[in-house]
């Protein structure tokens, strides 16, 4: 049995790695929560029982930061500016955990604190999970039906007024569904995209982005994982006819999200994190065999350390990095001071030259629109970003110093988003969106800040206050092919360097509140937050604040002022001295005399 499982798993791994068609997962009887066949009981499928027949689902569920979302430890650091899901460990506002799941469960894989639902294996292991049906059940609070609803569209189950009904013709005598209908397999990038951001693996698709909370990674960092050329986009991207590059070169090279964010105990792809590897070890020769791995695949996937993702901090920085696959020294011969550039710049700083998707600039939760959503503004976009006619200009990421796990500080591309929201001044907790929607919607919705404050007071919020924060979102996706990377030295070296332009953060400051920089992910604010003459909030980047002094970039250098004064004084002295000599030389009383005598004579008269 173990050998057979290993063989099957091996083939499965191969299929997943190659990005080719999936090989068939063995037929698995679908069991309900009591371990009975669902075709007999008609009950919702239990992933823990069904998948647990071969896989150690308990191990998987307890080794998955996707499952542990919502735990006290995770919530302590949580602040999702897009959904205003803010940290309050152990206490979920406005209806507790059930309301939290109904509101935010769309991005929760199940299990963990999401009691009443199991870790939904189908969400990531089906080629086309029924996300709409799944979300519908989550919103309704029918959590036990969520995995079953995710199977809608496979032909195994259908929705009726009484609930979900198993299509018995699709199951064999053992209660196992037709494997070709189920088509289980390794997770694809598309699966990741369901919750994280825009993924389009069809290179010919006319990609159109609808930015917002449903694609948080795309909205906040501009990440679009697609092999498609930007010029074939369905969006009105500025200069798109020239943008022959793919949205993401790694997608174009047939990589999947799991290529870098795979299971840490995958024996075929094992990289021990530098944070846990003994310093003298280059590699770990030991590893699980395939069968053991497939029984207990660790779902604490390798991940980076970015400010926007607080889950799985214990494995932050464990993912593949650029240098794990690329030898930069072999391809940067053209670059002067190559090693120094590598020490001071993350690869992404040059290899993500621009973002061609709408990129969030500010989120204002202090007022809501008619649909109860916050006011969002996007960089590079004037108008409605969901309108195909709206022009989307390129945004050059802001470079800010980020300190890695090894203590190295390098400039990394970031998108800064300012967010304004109401807090309970007495408890310090964030006023949740449900409360805001109750108070701020409708015909009689308060308009001014003071009116909103009074309305929140009446709604039970103690001492409502506006709080502002500037949050950084690390940009690590959307890598361009090498030929598109920044090669222009003046991009960083010169008065017109990318640091020299102020970074727009917000058109207005709600309530006049000056936001503070929310430091996280090792990112530091090298510069100062200022209001310009129009009252808009800007960041004035100063790399010197991080101890970085790019040659050619020092817009306000005292050295030049001193030097220039010195030079001007010298020049003035020379001109005055020389001018006096010339004047005396050409004075009428010196005409016709030898030069020195003439000068002497005239000087004598003048000085007398």
């Amino acid at each position, binding site marked *: 049995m173990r050998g057979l499982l290993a063989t099957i798993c091996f083939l499965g791994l191969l299929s997943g790695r190659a990005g080719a068609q999936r090989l068939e997962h063995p037929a698995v009887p679908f069991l309900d929560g009591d371990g009975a066949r669902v075709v007999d009981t008609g009950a919702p499928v239990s992933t823990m029982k069904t998948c647990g027949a071969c896989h150690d689902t308990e191990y998987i569920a307890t080794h998955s930061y996707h499952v542990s979302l919502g735990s006290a430890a995770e919530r302590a650091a949580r602040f999702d500016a897009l959904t205003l899901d803010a940290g309050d460990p152990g206490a979920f506002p406005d209806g507790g955990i059930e309301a939290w799941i109904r509101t935010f469960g769309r991005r929760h894989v199940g299990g963990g604190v999401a009691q009443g639902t199991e870790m939904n294996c189908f969400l990531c292991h089906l080629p086309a999970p029924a996300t709409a049906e799944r979300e519908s059940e989550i919103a309704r609070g029918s959590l036990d039906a969520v995995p079953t609803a995710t199977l809608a569209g496979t032909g195994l189950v259908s929705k009726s007024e009484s609930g979900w009904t198993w299509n018995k013709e699709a199951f064999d005598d053992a209660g196992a569904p037709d494997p070709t209908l189920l088509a289980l397999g390794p997770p694809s990038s598309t699966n990741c995209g369901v919750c994280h951001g825009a993924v389009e693996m069809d290179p010919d698709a006319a990609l159109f982005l609808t930015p917002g909370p449903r694609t948080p990674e795309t909205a906040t960092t501009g990440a679009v994982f697609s092999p498609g050329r930007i010029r074939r986009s369905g969006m009105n991207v500025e200069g798109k006819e020239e943008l022959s590059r793919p949205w993401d070169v790694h997608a174009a090279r047939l990589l999947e999200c799991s290529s870098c964010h795979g299971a840490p105990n995958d024996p075929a792809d094992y990289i021990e994190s530098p944070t846990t590897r003994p310093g003298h070890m280059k590699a770990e020769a030991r590893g699980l065999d395939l069968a053991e791995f497939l029984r207990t695949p660790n779902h604490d996937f390798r991940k980076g350390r970015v400010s926007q993702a607080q889950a799985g901090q214990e494995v932050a920085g464990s993912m593949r990095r650029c240098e794990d696959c690329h030898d930069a020294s072999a391809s940067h011969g053209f670059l*002067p001071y190559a090693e120094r550039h590598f020490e001071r710049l993350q690869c992404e700083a040059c290899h993500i030259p621009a973002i061609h998707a709408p990129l969030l600039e500010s989120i204002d939760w202090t007022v809501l629109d008619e649909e109860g959503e916050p006011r969002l503004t996007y960089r590079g976009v004037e108008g409605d970003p969901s309108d195909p006619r709206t022009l989307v200009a390129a945004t050059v990421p802001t470079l800010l110093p980020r300190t890695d796990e090894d203590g190295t500080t390098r400039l990394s591309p970031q998108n800064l988003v300012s967010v304004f929201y109401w807090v309970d001044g007495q408890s310090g907790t964030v006023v949740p969106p449900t409360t805001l929607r109750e108070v701020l919607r409708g015909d009689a919705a308060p308009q001014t800040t003071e009116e909103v404050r009074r309305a929140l007071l009446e709604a039970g919020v103690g001492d409502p206050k506006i709080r502002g924060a500037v949050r950084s979102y690390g940009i690590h996706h959307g890598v361009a092919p090498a030929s598109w990377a920044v090669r222009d030295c*003046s991009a960083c070296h*010169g008065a017109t360097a990318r640091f020299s332009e102020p970074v727009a953060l917000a058109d207005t400051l709600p309530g006049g509140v000056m936001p503070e920089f929310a430091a996280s992910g090792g990112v530091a604010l090298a510069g100062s937050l200022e209001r310009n003459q129009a009252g808009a909030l800007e960041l004035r980047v100063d790399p*010197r604040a991080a101890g970085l002094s790019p*040659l050619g970039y020092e817009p306000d250098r005292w050295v030049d002022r001193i030097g*220039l004064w010195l030079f001007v004084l010298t020049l003035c*002295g020379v001109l005055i*001295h*020389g001018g006096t000599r010339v004047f005396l030389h050409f004075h009428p009383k010196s005409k016709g005399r030898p030069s020195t005598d003439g*000068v002497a004579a005239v000087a004598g008269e003048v000085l007398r």
Partner: protein
Amino acid sequence: MKKEVKFYSLHERIWHWIQALTILVLIVTGFEVHAPGRIHLLGFELAVVTHTVFAVVLLANAAMGLFYFLTSGAIRQYVPGESGFFVKALRQAQYYLGGIFRGEPHPFEATPGNRLNPLQKVTYLMILNVLLPVQVVTGVLIWGAERWPDLVATVGGLALLVPIHALASWLFLSFIVMHIYLTTTGETPTANLKAMLTGFHESEEEAK
């Protein structure tokens, strides 16, 4: 009657003009590297390469010059210390501030064996022993920041080295302005320039 006296050997003149050319190029390219957004001559990349190449030329030329001045004994001309040096320097300063306007003769008569007046000696002492070494050391460290990062960090890093190098460049530029101007204070405005081109200087004393 005036007589032409050999003041500068061919070696000295070649050394001087190579030094002048390299310093000029270094200042121009240095400013482009320093402020590429304001100065567009070669482009940043070419300016960096040119600056590095000419820095090597300057170093090599300085080393050869030092060798020449040491072995020929001409180095003595640059060393102040004769008796009454301070008084002579004061007299030279008074000349530049007043006597030159009144057509007074130079208080210091240059000869092939003693070409520099006291103020020149002090100036060149500072240029050759302070400014040039500072510029060379900081320049080499900036260039070598990639190769010896620990060493560079030990001496303050680029954040300190770059401003010092830039300030020294401004001082060099100011010196050049002053230097060129003072060449016009000879017997005629172009006498000193001619001497550095031809090697010969007209001397009253020699004609006597």
